[in-house]
């Protein structure tokens, strides 16, 4: 033992004069680090209540609870996370998975309360002192627990797709579909948003499980047009998918299509439910569009005898005569329709109500009537010269092409309008070899057409001229041609906050000659099969009517649905109308229906 060993311990005194490490709480505050995982903050306005936080929390510290302020908000479950600090371990996984990045943590770490219940709180709803804390844990930029990008849909190149009417999208393969299906967080907000309330999370789950027959069964519960909707649905579900808040929404439509593509038509009968025993009731349906056929399918499932009257030679309505086959091949539409007829739905083609068969006779001979006759009359522009023979309607061209007739558009066409019909007319014209200019009175971002459609339209070489207002159609030198005069528009903000309005600039007019002008600015209904009295009785307004709760009307026995009875005018809404009308008719066939309704009203 050396002297040094005896003396060195006394060096501890050296430190007696150094600044102590400790912080004098509570006199001096010591805030948490800027990214400290402290107490939860939820920006409830941004949150959509998807519940991913609840799913990921391994401590079951989160319950999703109804918060009145958000009840019924579109694209929102109306629920918000409630935290139980008796369980939480402050891992912050809930913050990491949050689809809206609304959930975060403050850097506050001390909270003293003698009320145990205050440790069980709905963040952002129950007032907490750290609510407005700027600092604290946030998910780092570039950190993801779910891939933000969707799997791209394989497609034909623009050049390739112009060569024919072959389907442009090629469909996912199994690996791609499974990967995309994986991105679903199973919140079910899509279910609430889908007009038909399709069971999206479950059929997506069936893809992850590789059980496509189950997926098909799930889809048929709410939609007898899955092959169709898997291709052309307006997919409002995707617009609310929370995965799309920070990234791209799950490709719900393509996944639906994938399931249908996996199942052979000949197996449908085996896989899907069969109708129940006959009830003896007879229902007539006018129109074999998606609305009519959806009603037919579900009524037939309920054991009723169903006869569909259709003016055209084939079924599908606008899906057949409107939607071009490069988006929806006939075979796919037939896959849906064939299953509907295979369960015993009878379709009488070439039978126009009001001409071949009278509406009144249906009322007499059937227990109920459902009509879904759609919108078939093109709207007119109401400008001078519109009646020129070279001004064609978009609907007519599409119908011609669908029926293998040559619409005779020529080599240089102008399409007026910015909706889906305009895009379809333009792309069809490109496939017929024409050079296409689309004139639209507002900005491209204002177009009601689907964004993807607009993009593909441009890819295929259509020129979109936005802010172009047609003012007059003028004869050309040549009878086979026509001139259009249009003026440039300036967008002016609506002081009341509505969408900006185009204002014609009269000093910036252009005149151009085309082989034809295709007008596609909207369509309305053809109600010729109903007498004026009946129209009045059914309370049609501008060719449309709003049905009551069960798709029923003011006339006993008469139910309506589809484009002329809803505001959204798309296939899935028509399908839901049909399904819902089937439920209504089913109830109506029970004699107490109207009595019950009356009671309810009083």
């Amino acid at each position: 033992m050396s002297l040094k060993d005896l003396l060195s311990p006394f060096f501890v005194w050296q430190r007696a004069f150094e600044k102590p490490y400790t912080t004098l709480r509570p006199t001096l505050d010591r805030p948490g680090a800027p990214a400290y995982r402290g107490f939860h903050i939820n920006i409830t306005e941004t949150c959509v209540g998807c519940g991913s936080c609840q799913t990921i929390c391994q401590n079951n510290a989160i319950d999703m609870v109804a918060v009145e302020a958000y009840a019924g908000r579109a694209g929102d479950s109306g629920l918000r996370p409630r935290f139980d600090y008796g369980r939480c371990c402050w891992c912050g996984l809930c913050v990491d998975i949050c689809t809206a990045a609304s959930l975060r943590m403050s850097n506050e770490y001390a909270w003293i309360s003698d009320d145990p219940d205050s440790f069980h709180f709905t963040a952002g709803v129950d007032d907490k002192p750290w609510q407005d804390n700027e600092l604290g844990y946030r998910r780092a930029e570039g950190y993801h627990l779910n891939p933000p990008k969707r799997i791209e849909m394989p497609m034909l190149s623009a050049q390739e797709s112009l060569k024919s009417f072959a389907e442009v999208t090629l469909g996912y393969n199994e690996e791609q579909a499974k990967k995309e299906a994986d991105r679903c967080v199973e919140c079910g907000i899509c279910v609430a948003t889908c007009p038909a309330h399709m069971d999206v999370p479950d059929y997506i789950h069936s893809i992850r499980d590789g059980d496509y027959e189950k997926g098909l069964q799930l889809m048929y519960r709410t939609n007898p047009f899955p092959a169709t909707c898997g291709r052309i649905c307006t997919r409002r579900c995707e617009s609310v998918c929370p995965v799309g808040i920070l990234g791209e929404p799950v490709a719900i439509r393509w996944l639906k299509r994938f399931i249908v593509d996996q199942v052979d038509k000949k197996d449908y009968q085996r896989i899907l439910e069969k109708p129940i025993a006959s009830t003896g009731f007879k229902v007539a349906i006018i129109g074999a569009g998606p609305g009519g056929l959806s009603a037919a399918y579900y009524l037939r499932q309920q054991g009723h005898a169903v006869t569909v009257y259709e003016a055209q030679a084939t079924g599908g309505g606008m899906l057949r005569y409107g939607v071009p086959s490069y988006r929806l091949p006939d075979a796919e539409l037939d896959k849906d329709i064939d299953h509907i007829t295979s369960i015993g739905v009878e379709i009488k083609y070439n039978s126009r109500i009001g001409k071949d068969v009278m509406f009144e006779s249906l009322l007499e001979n059937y227990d109920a009537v459902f009509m879904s006759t759609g919108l078939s009359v093109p709207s007119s522009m109401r400008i001078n010269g519109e009646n020129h023979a070279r001004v064609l309607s978009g609907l007519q061209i599409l119908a011609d092409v669908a029926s293998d007739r040559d619409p005779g558009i020529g080599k240089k066409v102008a399409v007026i309008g910015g909706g889906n019909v305009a895009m379809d007319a333009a792309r069809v014209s490109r496939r017929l070899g024409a050079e296409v200019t689309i004139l639209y009175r507002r900005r491209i971002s204002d177009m009601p057409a689907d964004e993807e459609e607009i993009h593909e339209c441009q890819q295929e070489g259509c020129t979109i001229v936005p802010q172009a207002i047609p003012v007059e159609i003028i004869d050309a030198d040549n009878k086979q041609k026509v001139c259009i005069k249009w003026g440039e528009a300036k967008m002016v903000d609506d002081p009341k906050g509505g969408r900006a309005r185009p204002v014609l600039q009269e000093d910036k007019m252009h005149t151009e000659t085309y082989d034809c002008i295709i007008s596609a600015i909207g369509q309305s209904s053809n109600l010729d099969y109903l007498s004026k009295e009946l129209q009045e009785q059914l309370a049609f307004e501008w060719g449309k009517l709003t049905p009551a709760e069960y798709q029923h009307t003011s006339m006993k026995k008469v139910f309506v649905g589809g484009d002329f009875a809803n505001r959204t005018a798309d296939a899935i809404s028509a399908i839901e109308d049909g399904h819902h009308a089937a439920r209504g008719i089913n109830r109506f066939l029970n004699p107490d229906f109207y009595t019950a309704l009356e009671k309810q009203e009083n």
Partner: protein
Amino acid sequence: MNTVDEILDYAIEQEQLAADFYEDVAQRVETAGMKKILLDFAEEEKRHKKILLAVKTGEHELTPEQEILDLKISDYLVEVKTSENISYQDALIIAMQRERAAYNLYNDMAQKVPDGKLKHILLGLAKEEAKHKLFFEAEYDERVLTDN
């Protein structure tokens, strides 16, 4: 028509005539929905009339300086004749075109009088009609030109 009051009386009468016109057409249209719309239009005209009455008593000021947006929709549409089965689109076109005509009338008159109170009133009335036109054109833009 040389005095301010005379001009205002004329304008008030015009609004009343317009209201009568819509009520008259409303009696003849076939559908209940259309009838309601036309009666709404008539109400709108009566509201205009009230404003002018207030101008006359001095409770309300006309504002000829105010900039009113002109969407120029009606300027290029084919004229519509009233009939029993007009559509909503037709009704709007009729309304827009009537307001446009009134606007043009006051504006033309204003060009012909010397600067002063009278001119001020005429220009104010023109602006008032421009506002009405905007009301109907905005409705047309929103409800009819949907896909367009």
